């Protein structure tokens, strides 16, 4: 990967590789050429680093802090509908992966551990293991 993308030693970290995956996906979608020796396996590995890093970063107590306002908003809306004071059929909320990932984490829909199991093609021990949100992902509650 270091030679393929001409990376320096200081760039060999999960954050950079995660950003690199973003760029690779964008370039592939735009039909741009990949490095000559870039293989499907390299893409799979980059994807794993992106998913692992993001599910780890937006996990733990940090995810709880980030997800609390969204969950509070959802709870208030659902409570109002239950009381009959809100007749809304749908609320559409548009945000970033940094808004969706903490929700996936606190709802126990994903984790760095299960992402690793998936990458290693081992049996997944958790009930749910969704990937961090790709482009145009949606979460329906």
């Amino acid at each position, binding site marked *: 990967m270091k030679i393929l993308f001409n990376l320096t030693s200081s760039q060999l970290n*999960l954050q950079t590789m995660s950003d690199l995956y973003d760029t690779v996906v964008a370039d592939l979608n735009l039909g741009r050429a990949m490095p000559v020796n870039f293989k499907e396996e390299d893409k799979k590995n980059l994807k794993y680093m992106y998913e692992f*890093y993001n599910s*780890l*970063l937006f996990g*733990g107590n*940090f995810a709880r*802090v*980030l997800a609390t*306002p*969204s969950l509070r*908003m959802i709870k208030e809306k659902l409570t109002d509908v239950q009381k009959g004071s809100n*007749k*809304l*059929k*749908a*609320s*559409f*909320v*548009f*945000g*970033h992966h940094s*808004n969706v990932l903490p929700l996936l984490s606190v709802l126990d829909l994903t984790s760095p551990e299960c992402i690793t199991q998936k990458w290693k093609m081992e049996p997944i021990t958790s009930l749910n293991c969704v990937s961090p949100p790709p482009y*145009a992902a949606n979460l329906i509650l």
Partner: protein
Amino acid sequence: LAAPKFNPNEVEFYSTSKLRTQNSALSFIYGFYPLGEGWTIPPEVPSDKLVPPYTPLFPSYLSKSMTDSPFALNKGFQPLPVRPLDDILDNCPDYDNLLAKRLQEVSKTI
């Protein structure tokens, strides 16, 4: 799910202030409420009330569809409100510190 004509008591939209999420919201809305479903002008409204109450600077820009169409806006377009999300989501005053702390935790874990 929802009526073809937007009803604010039925559906609502929120977005963060970033341009790309606003673009996502607007793109979704244009698909959810396509052209041709917008508000129409009541037939009793006199046609002279459909043009600006002054001499337009560029009269050629007043297209025929703007005065002859039954719709209030061109092609039945529905301009819908997208509510700001930032006040609701960005209420953690310690976000930057927490992010730095989490990055440190993550570095130790890896």
